[in-house]
């Protein structure tokens, strides 16, 4: 039986639970799992204070309940699988290097930010900064895959260097902003200023038509719906960087 965590008490304030991470739960029994420390705001509490813990980790964690105020789930994980039945909060899978996270509902902001490897699948919508860089950092996602079935919001793939982001629905402003390389595919509409500040793009992506090109490593390719910024980007061959 895989490990199941069911939220039994709704938090008053956000919970930070980067301890719910596949790498940290091997060979831990139910009692010890329940006693793991998580942060309820500034208060240190035990996992068992909010979650009913059942089973033992065997490579898969199932998490149930409305997790929209639970942050940092699976952050930094390097393998295994987390399956989240409902909605989930910010920083899901941030900095992860391997494994898989599947979210049946919606996800918050900064999911898989600065991700290195692995896969995140969100069946609902995702928030801002999907796979993005934290402020001040010149590099966002460096590898792995993020698949959003629904919509994503601003700054999807901010400063992305490698990997794949697919958005089944729409994305909002500044998709692929300051991108270095990697692939972003948006099947729906994009907001304004997509691809602003991209570096190293060999040619101007298709405008006014949907295209699907996958060119990992070599160059950032993003599906652009025509926007005013396109003109400027075209005329400058994308060579203008945010930095220089």
């Amino acid at each position, binding site marked *: 039986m895989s490990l199941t965590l069911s939220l039994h008490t709704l938090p008053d304030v956000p919970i930070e639970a980067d301890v719910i991470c596949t790498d940290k739960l091997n060979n831990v029994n139910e009692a010890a799992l329940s006693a793991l420390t998580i942060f309820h705001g500034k208060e240190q509490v035990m996992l068992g204070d909010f979650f009913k813990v059942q089973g033992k980790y065997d490579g898969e964690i199932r998490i149930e309940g409305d997790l929209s105020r639970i942050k940092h789930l699976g952050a930094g994980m390097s393998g295994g699988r987390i399956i989240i039945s409902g909605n989930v909060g910010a920083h899901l899978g941030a900095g992860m290097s391997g494994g898989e996270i599947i979210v049946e509902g919606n996800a918050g902001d900064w999911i898989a930010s600065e991700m290195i490897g692995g896969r995140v699948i969100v069946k609902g919508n995702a928030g*801002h*900064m999907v796979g993005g860089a934290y402020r001040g950092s010149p590099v966002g996602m460096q590898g792995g895959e993020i698949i959003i079935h629904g919509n994503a919001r*601003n*700054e999807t793939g901010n400063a992305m260097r490698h990997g794949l982001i697919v958005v089944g629905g729409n994305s909002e402003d500044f998709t692929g902003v300051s991108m270095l390389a990697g692939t972003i595919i948006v099947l729906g509409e994009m907001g304004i200023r997509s691809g602003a500040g991209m570096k190293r793009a060999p040619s101007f992506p298709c405008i006014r038509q949907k295209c699907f090109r996958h060119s990992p490593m070599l160059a950032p390719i993003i599906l652009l719906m025509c926007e005013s910024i396109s003109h400027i980007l075209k005329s400058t061959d994308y060579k203008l960087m945010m930095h220089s």
Partner: protein
Amino acid sequence: MTETMILIPGRTSEQGTALNKGKLKAEYQHETSMLDINTEDMERLGLQEGDRARLSNETGEIIVTCRGRKPEDLPHGVLFIPYGPPSSQLMAGETAGSGMPLSKHMEVKIEKVDV
């Protein structure tokens, strides 16, 4: 008649000096519920100087008093209001991961209020 326009709250000297007297005073409250609007837009909306208008969006709605501005001073479709509690009522809490609400660029519906 209802139209969607862009509302830009900003500072004015009157708002700046009035807030020294106190934000609960009539002068500040009056100044922060004055709406600058292009006179041609006013005409189209059937608004006269000093008329009351309703501004609304998904977040809230407010009633303001219209002040005409020449079209060369304020572009079509752009509304200006001094910062204050009324403009807050139309501001959404979303900051898109920045901490900053879109406080100077709000899409609002404007319509005349018949008194």
